[in-house]
């Protein structure tokens, strides 16, 4: 457990001169930003070059430890299974399911402990070996607490069974006894072995009456019989064989009150703690937590664990499980959500601070009914998206939960990135997926501009297969239809192409700036041997041309380039007028002589 009143460790940040300049900092979800300010500590402000970097400082080793990651991932699966347990189940079957879930959590903690223990032993440098060992003891304490909570709150064992469970609990955590047994039972004459008698005392709690012993006069025998009759003082004399006060507690209960009731436990617990410590030392955080558990004060247990442990994993999962056992009254915090939800939110937010484990956090937010959704909305937009594959995963998460705002926002970001990288087809698909009309217009404009510059379209397969998505924005519809015009022309469906071209202008979906291009596209149709545009259509085209030219800006002072451009423009207009006039003539003649076909 963390020392609450120890000196905090000093971390030196390279490059930052805290003696000269004041530093500023700000907290993030899992880390801190630090940089130098330009405010000097001395009175006179000297022009000292300050460090130009902003540092990100992380303390939380837990989230980054490789082995603890397995804990997070495996427990995530157990958490999900618990949420999906049929709410209809009641009574015994529900209780046994909940106990099974609790045991699953505990076995995951134990697996983690084992692995970390192996790493601790194999560690090459002693400092990291010590660090791993301290992690092992933290995990061991966590499992100890969880196990006790399981017995008292989930299993809810009645008097009689309660002690049996407590015996198992102590046995699991007192390995010393097991290694002693092996020594003693292996020797020639067990009763002559020194450890035999010591074992008799400590081992009584785990082996019960199964150890054979002789009735020879023996000072040890007297102590043994006293203990068996419930003499606490005699038991206390053998203190060094009992590893801690709860071992003492359970041993004591075994001989003095084996049918202890759950509600009476805390009397024995408190006095055992006091007797065992004997006024020499004060209780540690772990002791207080266990005491609170014996007092059935769940809130106190959770509160103390939250303070003592350095991340939210333990309290979040334990509280959630206890909530499923219907043990927590709605303990309202000032922003209105209950304790279970608060802890899950904290835990999940911590996961989102990790580059990889954010995916687990999503499921935790899902099961926070009040603030989960809004928290998820805030967090999911901030996940960095460096590949399309990751973006698609995030999008799928949002779409599954009908988070349309976030979908739109993410697609916009990706569309913008694509435009910057000149991947227009990609940008267009993203804007369509985002249903973002404004962006679709922007991208369509780019396409059209590209076409004007290069004379051909990119990403034809996308534009050709837009389907109903074409309706998203006028500009996009125009792009699709314009491309259709080119296709029709390519397939020599001239009459259809001509009508389409004309309708693009008359319907108003073609931007003014593009009309010149469209009219120029009409030229080859006007110059064909057969008459394609009818007289009526030709009148309309002429109208469009006049509309366009009448809005010309007044010629003022212009430079050479502008003059040249205007010359080209004038020539084009002249050519168009000529072609239109000729076509009109031919059309009138044809319609007049062929019944207007």
């Amino acid at each position: 457990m963390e020392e609450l009143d120890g000196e905090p460790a000093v971390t030196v940040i390279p490059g930052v001169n805290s003696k000269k300049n004041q530093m500023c900092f700000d907290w993030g979800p899992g880390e801190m930003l630090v940089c130098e300010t330009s405010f000097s500590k001395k009175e006179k402000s000297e022009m000292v070059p300050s460090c130009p970097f902003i540092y990100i400082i992380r303390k939380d080793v837990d989230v980054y430890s490789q082995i603890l990651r397995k804990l997070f991932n495996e427990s995530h699966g157990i958490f999900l299974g618990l949420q999906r347990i049929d709410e209809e189940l009641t009574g015994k079957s529900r209780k046994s399911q909940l106990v099974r879930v609790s045991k699953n959590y505990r076995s995951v903690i134990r697996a983690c402990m084992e692995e970390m223990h192996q790493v601790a032993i194999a560690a090459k440098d002693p400092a990291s070996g010590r660090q791993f060992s301290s992690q092992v003891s933290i995990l061991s304490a966590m499992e100890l607490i969880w196990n006790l909570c399981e017995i008292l709150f989930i299993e809810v064992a009645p008097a009689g069974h309660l002690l049996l469970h407590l015996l198992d609990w102590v046995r699991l955590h007192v390995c010393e006894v097991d290694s002693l047994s092996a020594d003693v039972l292996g020797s020639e004459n067990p009763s002559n072995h020194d450890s035999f008698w010591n074992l008799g005392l400590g081992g009584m709690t785990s082996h019960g009456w199964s150890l054979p012993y002789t009735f020879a006069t023996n000072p040890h025998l007297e102590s043994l019989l006293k203990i068996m009759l419930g003499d606490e003082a005699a038991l206390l004399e053998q203190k060094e064989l009992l590893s801690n006060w709860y071992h003492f507690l359970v041993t004591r209960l075994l001989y003095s009150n084996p049918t202890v009731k759950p509600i009476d436990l805390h009397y024995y617990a408190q006095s055992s703690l006091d007797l065992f410590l004997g006024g020499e030392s004060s209780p540690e955080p772990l002791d207080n937590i266990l005491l609170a558990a014996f007092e059935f004060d769940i809130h106190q247990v959770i509160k103390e664990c939250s303070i003592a442990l350095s991340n939210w994993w333990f309290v979040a999962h334990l509280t959630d499980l206890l909530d499923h056992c219907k043990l927590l009254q709605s303990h309202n915090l000032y922003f209105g959500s209950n304790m279970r939800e608060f802890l899950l939110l904290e835990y999940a937010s911590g996961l989102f601070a990790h580059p990889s484990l954010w995916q687990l956090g999503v499921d935790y937010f899902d099961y926070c009914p009040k603030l989960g959704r809004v928290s998820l909305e805030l967090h999911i937009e901030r996940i960095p998206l460096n590949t399309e594959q990751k973006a698609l995963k995030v999008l799928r998460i949002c779409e599954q939960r009908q988070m349309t705002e976030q979908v739109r926002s993410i697609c916009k970001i990706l569309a913008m990135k694509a435009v910057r990288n000149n991947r227009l087809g990609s940008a267009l698909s993203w804007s369509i997926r985002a249903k973002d009309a404004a962006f679709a217009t922007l991208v369509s404009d780019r396409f059209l501009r590209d076409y004007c510059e290069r004379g051909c379209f990119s990403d034809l397969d996308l534009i050709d297969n837009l389907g109903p998505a074409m309706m998203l924005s006028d500009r996009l519809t125009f792009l699709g239809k314009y491309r259709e015009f080119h296709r029709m022309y390519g397939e020599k469906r001239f009459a259809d192409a001509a009508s389409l071209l004309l309708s693009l202008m008359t319907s108003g979906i073609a931007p003014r700036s593009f009309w010149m291009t469209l009219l120029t596209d009409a030229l080859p149709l006007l110059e064909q041997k057969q008459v394609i545009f009818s007289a009526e259509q030709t009148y309309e085209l002429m109208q469009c041309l006049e509309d366009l030219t009448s809005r010309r800006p007044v010629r003022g002072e212009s430079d050479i380039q502008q003059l040249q451009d205007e010359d080209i423009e004038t020539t084009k207009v002249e050519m168009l007028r000529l072609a239109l006039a000729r076509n009109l003539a031919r059309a009138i003649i044809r319609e007049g002589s062929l019944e207007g076909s």
Partner: protein
Amino acid sequence: MEEIYAKFVSQKISKTRWRPLPPGSLQTAETFATGSWDNEENYVSLWSIGDFGNLDSDGGFEGDHQLLCDIRHHGDVMDLQFFDQERIVTASSTGCVTVFLHHPNNQTLSVNQQWTTAHYHAGPGSPSYSSAPCTGVVCNNPEIVTVGEDGRINLFRADHKEAVRTIVWEVHFHPSNPDHLFTCSEDGSLWHWDASTDVPEKLSLFHQGGRSSTFLSHSISNQANVHQSVISSWLSTDPAKDRIEITSLLPSRSLSVNSLDILGPCLVCGTDAEAIYVTRHLFS
């Protein structure tokens, strides 16, 4: 379908591939490679399910998969393929294509060859150079084809430094069809679609999932007696007539299964819940 072994490996697995067996070999699959993604440090790892000294009653191997060796990989492993027995090609989110070489004598992996600017939006010559993720890689000794978010297809030769050819295109692949199909999906499910005609009772179910990758069993597709009715069962529009038995292979469903590979009776898959699942008895 017998036991499936799970192991949590502290990295999200993006791709898993069995090491190909030498042609004509009678061994079963023993080694597979994995690539991770979304970590600050990603790894390409080699795992073994080979002999640990324990044989079960059928003479098969017991125990779960063990790590042989690994090597750091810059960027997410977007795709991974075995080039040959000793070499692995990976596609990275940094736009880099790498060939790793496995040294069996001292069980290490090393970088054999690398094309760091295989995929990019703005080229290495331009001031605003930006790389593009390489999304797929396929090999056929000695050629490697890669495709990326920049829309390029590159053709590399294993011994050449530069890309042999670059094409700008967009590609979609569709697998062909024998009688056993395995799919893994974004919603965390792993399905075995069994269209073999010798199974008496079959249910027809159509699984609806997110993006999925489909994969086909190598050994079965090489059987000489793949006959007409097998092919038609996949394409059949009448669900009542040709039945497909669909089995879920994973015990519980959590996060996305990103990748799966099959060699003979062995299947391996990797998930975003940082777990690798292996089974050696697919068809028992």
